[in-house]
C-alpha cells in the first residue's frame, strides 16, 4: 500500500450529499477480477453521456461537460470535496480503488459511510471528516484552482491563505497509513494470541471448532 504523509493537491468540489458507491463505480464494472484499472470508470454515469460497459476504451466516449471532474480547472485533482454521508451503500472496495486509480489521495466531507471509510485506509486513501460549516466554507473557496496542503502526521490542513484546519483520525489507522503497512502482516504478529483465543473459545462453544 502507498504510504500517505504530505499532500499538496488540487481540490475538486463534488457538491452532492449521499454520494453512493453505485455512483462512484457502477455495478457492471464489478465483474472484473482485477484490482486495478477502475479509474476510467469512476463516476461513470455522471462523467459520460453514454452508457459504460466493462473493458470499454473511454478515450473517445462523450463527456458530460457539466460534471465537475470534466471541468478544465479541476484536471489533476487529488482531493475530492463532498457533502454528507459520502460512500454510502455497498461494501465494494472497487469504490476506493476507482478513486485511487483516478488519482485521488484524500476525500473531505462532513461524514462518511462506515464501510467506505474503513476501505479507504486499506488503499492509501485518506478520508477526512470536518464539521459541516468548515466543509461549506471550503466549497466557497474551491470554485476554481484551489489547493490544500494535508499533513497527516500533524493532522492538519493548510489553506492557500495560511489558515489551519485540524482533523481527527484514529492512532492505529494513522500509523498504518503513514507507513503504508500491510494489515495482515501486522495482525499475524498476534498469531499466538489468535490460537490462544481459539483454544479458550473451543471450551465455551465447541460446535464452532
Amino acid at each position, binding site marked *: 500500500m502507498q504510504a500517505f504523509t504530505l499532500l499538496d493537491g488540487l481540490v475538486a468540489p463534488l457538491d452532492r450529499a449521499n454520494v453512493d458507491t453505485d455512483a462512484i463505480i457502477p455495478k457492471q464494472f464489478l465483474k472484473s477480477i482485477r484490482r486495478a484499472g477502475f479509474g476510467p470508470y469512476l463516476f461513470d454515469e455522471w462523467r459520460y453521456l453514454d452508457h459504460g460497459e466493462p473493458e470499454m476504451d473511454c478515450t473517445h466516449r462523450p463527456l458530460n461537460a457539466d460534471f465537475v471532474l470534466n471541468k478544465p480547472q479541476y484536471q489533476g485533482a487529488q482531493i475530492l470535496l463532498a457533502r454528507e454521508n459520502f460512500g454510502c451503500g455497498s461494501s465494494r472496495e472497487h469504490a476506493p480503488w476507482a478513486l485511487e486509480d483516478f488519482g485521488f489521495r484524500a476525500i473531505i466531507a462532513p461524514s462518511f459511510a462506515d464501510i467506505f471509510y474503513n476501505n479507504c485506509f486499506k488503499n492509501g486513501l485518506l478520508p477526512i471528516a470536518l464539521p459541516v460549516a468548515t466543509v461549506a466554507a471550503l466549497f466557497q473557496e474551491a470554485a476554481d484552482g484551489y489547493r490544500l496542503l494535508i499533513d497527516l502526521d500533524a493532522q492538519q490542513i493548510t489553506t492557500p491563505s495560511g489558515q489551519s484546519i485540524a482533523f481527527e483520525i484514529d492512532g492505529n489507522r494513522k500509523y498504518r497509513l503513514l507507513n503504508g503497512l500491510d494489515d495482515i502482516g501486522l*495482525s499475524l504478529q498476534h498469531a499466538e494470541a489468535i490460537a490462544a483465543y481459539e483454544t479458550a473459545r473451543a471450551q465455551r462453544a465447541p460446535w464452532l471448532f
Partner: protein
Amino acid sequence: MPGKTLYDKLWADHVVYTEDDGSALIYIDRHLLHEVTSPQAFEGLRLAGRKPWRTDRNLAVADHNVPTTDRHQGIADPISRLQVETLDSNCAEFGITEFAMDDTRQGIVHVIGPEQGATLPGMTVVCGDSHTSTHGAFGALAFGIGTSEVEHVLATQCLVQKKAKNFLVKVNGQVGAGVTAKDIVLAIIGVIGTAGGNGYTIEFAGEAIRALSMEGRMTLCNMAIEAGARAGLVAVDDATIDYCRDRPYAPKGGDWFMAERLWRGLHSDADAVFDKVVELEASAILPQVTWGTSPELVVAVNGHIPDPALETDAVKQQSMVRALDYMGLVAGQAITDIAVDKVFIGSCTNSRIEDLRAAAAVAKGKAKAASVKLAMVVPGSGLVKRQAEAEGLDQVFLAAGFEWREPGCSMCLAMNADRLEEGERCASTSNRNFEGRQGYGGRTHLVSPAMAAAAAIAGHFVDVRQLSGV
C-alpha cells in the same frame, strides 16, 4: 456499573487483542464469500504465499452474476462467467466449501447462511457485502467488509475493528394488517435518515419487532445498512432457537443444549445504556413507498410526493430536486397515481418463503396489468424455490402472468441480464433505489412484497390493505 447491551456482549466475546487506541483484533466465526468481492482477496493470498487460517469457517456461493433463467445454458456474458469460474477455482484451490450454480442449496449468500444454519446466534459473521447486516436477526454480530478485509479474514480469521456505539430503535405496539417488516424498516429509515446509524450498531427492539418472524427480522436487519449502521441486531428468543434447530450446520446432540443455554443469554441487560435511542409507534406505520434515489426519501402509500420548496436545509433541498428530476416525478403527486413498468420480487431483503407467500396471497386469482411489461419473482435460494413450488406458489404467480425464476441477486443490482431499461419504473422489493442501481437510467421504488404484487396487478401503486386476500 450499568448493564451490557447485546452488542457489548457479542463484542467482548470476540476480542482477541486490544490496541492502545482502542481498536481490537476480533475473531470471526463465519465468513461468507461470493464471486464479486473475493477474487482480488484470493489473488492477494497467492501473491503473499499465504494460506487460509481455517478453511472450515468459510462458505462460498455465486449469486450476483448468476442467470435467473435456464441454468443449463451457463452464463452468456463472458466477463460474468469468468468471475463465477474464478470463485469455483479459488474455492477448489484453497479448500473452501462452495455451493455451485447447479446445487439446490445455491442462492443469495444472505439467504443461504441462515437457511443452512451457517449463521448462528452469538457468532461474528462477515462477508464482502454490505447486506451482511441481515444475519444480525439471529443475535449475531454481522457486518459487511471490503475485499482487503476479506483477504484479512481468510489469512487470520480475524479483523481489526473499532467498537461502534450503541443505538436502540424501539418499535412499540403492534403493526396493522398489511404492514410488514419492510414497511417498519423503511419507516425507521425515513425517521433517522440514511446516515442516522453511521458509527453505530442498531439493536431493534419492542413489541412490534418481537412479533416478527425470523424472515421479517432478516428483512429488518438487512436494511440497517441503509440507515448507515454496519450491523443491526435482534435479541435471541424462542423464534430464533426454533429457526436454528436441525439446520444442516447447527450444533447437534449435547452441543445443541449447550449452545441453546448460551444463546438464551443473548439480549441486552435491562439496565443497559445506549448512546442513542429512537422510539416509533407501530400503529402509525403504514405501507411504505420510496419516491427518490435514497431510501430515506420515503412516504406512506396514501401520501404525496413532498415539495422540495418546503425543505429548509439547502443540501437536502438540492438532493430532493435532483431525485425528482431523475425519477420523473413532480411534487404533490399522489403515490397511488404512479404507474409502474416492471415489478421485481426478490433480493436478500425480500426473497424468503414468507415474502413469496405474502406476494402470492395478493396475486392469487388475479392477473398482472397489461401495462406492466414484466413482473418477476426470484426466490432467494434453490431451497426456497423448492418450498414455494411444494406450496403451489409458483403456479399462483404463473397464473397471474408473473415470471418464476431461478435464485440469485438478479435485478436488485442488475449485474446479470435482469435489468431496467432507461426510464423504466419499477416496484421493487430490494433495498436500494440509487440512480442506475437496477439498470442505467432505471427508476426504483422500494416496497414490501405484498405492495409489489399489488402494483403488478393494478399497474400502479395501491394500498395493499384495500385489496382482498390480504
